[in-house]
């Protein structure tokens, strides 16, 4: 019989051990399932976890894929820390990309890269507005933010589909549902490396991540706002007594996370696609939930978590091409990983005790 006994203080060791053990367990159980369903486990393992590192341009593609995950994950971190469950980042990503796309397509001849600041701002506003709906419903009418934010994902997906096939469709697109290409000023370029040229798809959008991680670290650890969020999440009663306004914190974290998801949408479209199309996100908003948890809801952790999950995503693409395994299989690993990470959280606070006989 296993029983859990509360620890006197949170175990520091487990904070490091838990994510590593979780990954090991996840690989083990994932392979078990693959074997059970008749796939070669070793080849799957190679394709998903090793092949993304096999060439330098592939490694840079990991960074490209990690970029939106880290940006969205950082926003979600703020929500989850304060016990606000925004699971609609996918929709906020789309609406951010859409509003920025609308602005970009309104100025077809603009060339200056300063214009990017405007489109990124528009992306932030678009995402934040979409997150404002669950925020206001939650704080004013006590409507569950989980369900509202999720329903809005479906609405956003249908909305961009409608816009791209209707009002913003390029008449010259030969019947394809595509908008006109963005003007030069709204595109994020690939980074040229002297003597090497381009490394895969590596683009300047990655700079935003290098900016965001330290800023969010300072915000969470060194400012009053970050302190309030931490207290609200870990000790809601204390936050109440201290007079922190729960509603304004809820609205703030939702707007910030929606805005960041929107920015991720702008960067993704401006750097990798260059025009609007019916599908712009490919599930980044949902995957970022796992990234936020794998990163232990800390900015630096999320940086690493984004890179790890991006690796698995790219690996799954490879596995689809070479072995015909459906791409959604990454969800299998993400789900198991989340289960074990959450168990790790319990083990930080509780010791396991093996006792014999009845409890």
């Amino acid at each position, binding site marked *: 019989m*296993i*029983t*859990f006994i*509360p620890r006197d203080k949170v175990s520091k060791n487990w904070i490091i051990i838990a994510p590593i053990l979780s990954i090991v367990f996840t690989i083990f159980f994932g392979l078990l*399932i693959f074997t059970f*369903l008749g796939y070669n486990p070793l080849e799957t393992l190679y394709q998903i976890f090793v092949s993304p590192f096999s060439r330098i341009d592939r490694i840079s593609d990991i960074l490209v894929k990690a970029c939106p995950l880290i940006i969205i994950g950082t926003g979600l971190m703020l929500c989850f820390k304060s016990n606000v*469950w925004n*699971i609609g980042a996918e929709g906020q990503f789309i609406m951010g990309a859409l509003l920025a796309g609308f602005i970009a397509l309104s100025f077809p001849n603009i060339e200056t890269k300063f214009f990017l600041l405007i489109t990124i701002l528009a992306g932030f506003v678009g995402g934040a507005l979409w997150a404002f*709906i669950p925020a206001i*419903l939650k704080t004013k*009418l*006590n*409507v*569950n933010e*989980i*369900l*509202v934010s*999720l*329903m*809005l994902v*479906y*609405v956003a997906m*249908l*909305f961009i*589909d*409608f816009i791209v*096939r*209707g009002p913003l469709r390029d008449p010259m697109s030969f019947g394809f549902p595509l908008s006109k290409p963005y003007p030069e000023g709204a595109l994020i370029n690939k980074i040229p490396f002297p003597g090497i040229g381009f490394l895969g798809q590596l683009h300047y959008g990655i700079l935003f991540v290098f900016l965001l991680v330290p800023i969010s670290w300072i915000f969470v650890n060194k400012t009053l706002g970050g302190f309030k969020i931490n207290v609200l999440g870990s000790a809601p009663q204390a936050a109440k007594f201290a007079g922190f306004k729960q509603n304004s914190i809820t609205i703030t974290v939702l707007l910030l996370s929606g805005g960041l998801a929107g920015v991720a949408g702008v960067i993704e479209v401006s750097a990798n696609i260059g025009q609007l199309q019916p599908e712009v996100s490919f599930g980044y908003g*949902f995957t970022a*939930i*796992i990234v936020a*948890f794998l990163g232990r809801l800390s900015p630096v952790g999320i940086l690493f978590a984004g890179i790890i999950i991006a690796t698995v995503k790219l690996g799954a693409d490879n596995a689809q091409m070479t072995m*015909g*395994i*459906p*791409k*959604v*299989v*990454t*969800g*299998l*690993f*993400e*789900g*198991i990983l*989340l*289960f074990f990470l*959450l*168990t790790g*959280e*319990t083990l930080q606070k*509780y010791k396991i005790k093996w006792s014999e006989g009845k*409890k």
Partner: protein
Amino acid sequence: MEALILTIIATSIPLLLAATGELIAEKSGVLNLGVEGMMLSGAVGALGAVLWLENPYYGIIAGALSGILMASIFSLFTINFMTNQVATGLGLTIFATGLTGLAGAPLVGKTIPSLPKIEIFLLSDIPLIGSILFKQDFVAYLSIGIIIFISFFLKYSKSGIILRAVGDDHQSAHSVGYPVKKIRWYTTCFGGMCAGIGGAYIPLVLTPHWSEGMTAGRGWIALALVVFASWIPWRIIVGALIFGGITIAQLVGQARGWPIPSQLLSMMPYIATIIALTMISGRLSKNNSVVPSSLGKPFFGSQ
């Protein structure tokens, strides 16, 4: 007209079943956000079983078992390992989306026979009402049976009262000596069974072949239905029929060529969910006694 009503009923049955199962789980204090995942597993399980055994009734059993399997994973982590219910439920849906994508890949392009209608002797001959109420398939009768059963179970049976006590105050229920964890295992698995059968109904009756993520958000709408019904079983029937009606209305609108873009029509069920939640939640926050007080809170057991 008759055909239209029958389609609305068929569309609402997966929602009805999944929401009823979730209601029981929530009444005992378990918030399982993995309904979408359990429904997907039920769908893929049913498809596999019917293709293998060539009898649609095995699909119902396989759907139920797949749902229970998923619910057991959720129970193991949230009840025994005391993980956060919201995050674990999300994880379950993500996990099941991946698992069913993998398990469903060999099934793509194969079609299964649909669940036969059962005519109830004489009653099914009554015009209009007969074919709507007494010429349904097994799962339709089953789902109404389950609703009636749990309405009485929750209200009048001793076990039902204990179940509600566990959901309202698990600490007190524990100190009186009720096995909180065991009860929650049962209710969660019951929820999984219902969601699994609801998911199985989608390939068995609505669209007879596999496509990735074929539940299309029904699990999430079912979660909203529980709130909409204010945790009162019979109200789920009303809610499910309304949502079935809205879903069919947008399909009819697309087929008849209403001058509204199809995507905007397809948004209707999701927007309706938000509106319904908003209307109900405003009322609920004034009358807090309806919501199970321990809902979503982990139970740390014997101390």
